[in-house]
């Protein structure tokens, strides 16, 4: 393990600790909001609940506002404290994490909008069962990524990043089913297209959860593993042990 472990507390200047802790709790609060939006969006689309879909569409502003607020606070810490080492990595990870969280919020909003639009179409027999499964996987990845961030847990981040491959496979299989569906009966095309967009949004949420996991690894280990093959990351982390 790296000796320069991430550790929020115990600066000589206590106010610095308080500022970093405040940023951390806001990131977690923002993550919680995104997770709630995502689960509402999935419920809306799979149960055909258009009012829930509308609620999701109308709640995204709270996530956006938090992003702006946290960005501002990170800017203040950079300007006033000139963070270095683990503190610097923390601020950098937060700035990147909230960008991904905000985009996930947008994806959830998009799914909410699809839910509202899909109500106008006839519902398929399976009630979008596949979307529910994909949605659960994406939700789970998001929650695990947030958990890894909260506990600065590298192992959890690595495990969560692994789940993305499974989510991608599920996404591809849904794509194939939907294409089949559209070929069977062209009348299915409008609503299937909507469902495809939702599936795509869920797949992107999985990718963004992966990004957050990568920031956690950067935060704790000081290593940037973006654009690195999975095998290489595992080998590198083993070498460091």
């Amino acid at each position, binding site marked *: 393990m790296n*000796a320069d*472990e991430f*550790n929020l507390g*115990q600066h000589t200047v206590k106010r*610095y600790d308080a500022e970093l802790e405040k940023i951390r709790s806001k990131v977690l609060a923002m993550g919680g909001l995104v997770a709630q939006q995502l689960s509402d969006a999935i419920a809306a689309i799979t149960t055909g609940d258009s009012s829930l879909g509308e609620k999701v569409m109308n709640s995204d502003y709270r996530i956006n506002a938090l992003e702006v607020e946290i960005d501002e606070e990170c800017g203040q810490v950079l300007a006033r404290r000139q963070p*270095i080492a*683990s503190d*610097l*990595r923390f601020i950098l990870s937060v700035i990147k994490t909230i960008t991904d969280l905000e985009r996930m919020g947008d994806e959830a909003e998009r799914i909410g909008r699809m839910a509202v639009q899909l109500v106008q179409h006839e519902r398929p027999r399976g009630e979008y069962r596949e979307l529910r499964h994909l949605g659960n996987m994406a939700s789970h990845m998001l929650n695990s990524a947030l958990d890894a961030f909260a506990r600065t847990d590298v192992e959890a981040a690595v495990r969560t990043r692994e789940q993305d491959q499974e989510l991608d496979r599920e996404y591809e299989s849904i794509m194939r089913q939907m294409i089949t569906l559209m070929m069977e009966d062209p009348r299915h095309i409008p609503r299937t297209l909507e469902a495809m967009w939702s599936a795509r949004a869920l797949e992107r949420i999985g990718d963004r959860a992966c990004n957050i996991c990568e920031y956690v690894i950067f935060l704790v280990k000081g290593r940037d593993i973006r654009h690195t093959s999975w095998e290489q990351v595992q080998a590198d982390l083993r070498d460091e042990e």
Partner: protein
Amino acid sequence: MSANAPSSRPYGVPTTAYYVRDSGDGTIVSVQGFNLWYDKVQALFDITMDVPRGLVTALIGPSGCGKSTLLRCMNRMNDLIDTVRISGSMQVDDQDIYGKGVDVIGLRKRMGMVFQKPNPFAMSIFDNVVYPLRVDGVGSGRVLEETCERALRGAALWDEVKDRLGESALGLSGGQQQRLCIARAIAADPEVLLMDEPCSALDPIATAKIEELIDELKGHYSIVIVTHNMQQAARVSDNTAFMYLGKLIEYGDTEVMFTNPKLAQTSDYITGRFG
């Protein structure tokens, strides 16, 4: 990027993290198993480090950690204190500076020193700058004038003082005085500039000018700078050595040390989590 630790480690320091950026131009100062005592109190413990030629090396650490002591050892200024004893070796350009028959005055000419408080002599700006040459017995007016201009230009002070070289140096501002001291050090044409907190008595603008100067001087000179200002070490140096309680704890590429230090002690110190 990183050179390995110097091969000979007579006393062994297993805790040191060592990942120094190499200049590709060899080592200017090589410290091997160096210990120093003030009377019975040991102030430096088994310091082993190579200072790459042409780069800026920062020494950081809390007060009393031995960084200034180590810096002063590099031009044998500790000789001036009777109770000092040393062991181990220190080489400049492969010459053992604590060996027998070393010309200490000659050594100090090669190792220019700039102190915390500017210390211009109570004489004119011109006389301050050419002082080292006068001590050497250089009498030629032309040589003195040329050297004065070259040194003042090198210290980025020429344009500010060229019209009043005959005036007293004590009339200059603090930042100008410090640059004058750097000019005086440069006039002796040293290989190394040793700077002991050169900006701690200066305002931010004067500090920025000295930092800009350090940037310009590096390459031509090797610079070792002691600083209490962590951000300054991060800004100006290529390598940083973190010392604590007389020991070298971590010595490596500044880029790495300030983003991802290897040892917890270093991280605690530079992030302000120290005891």
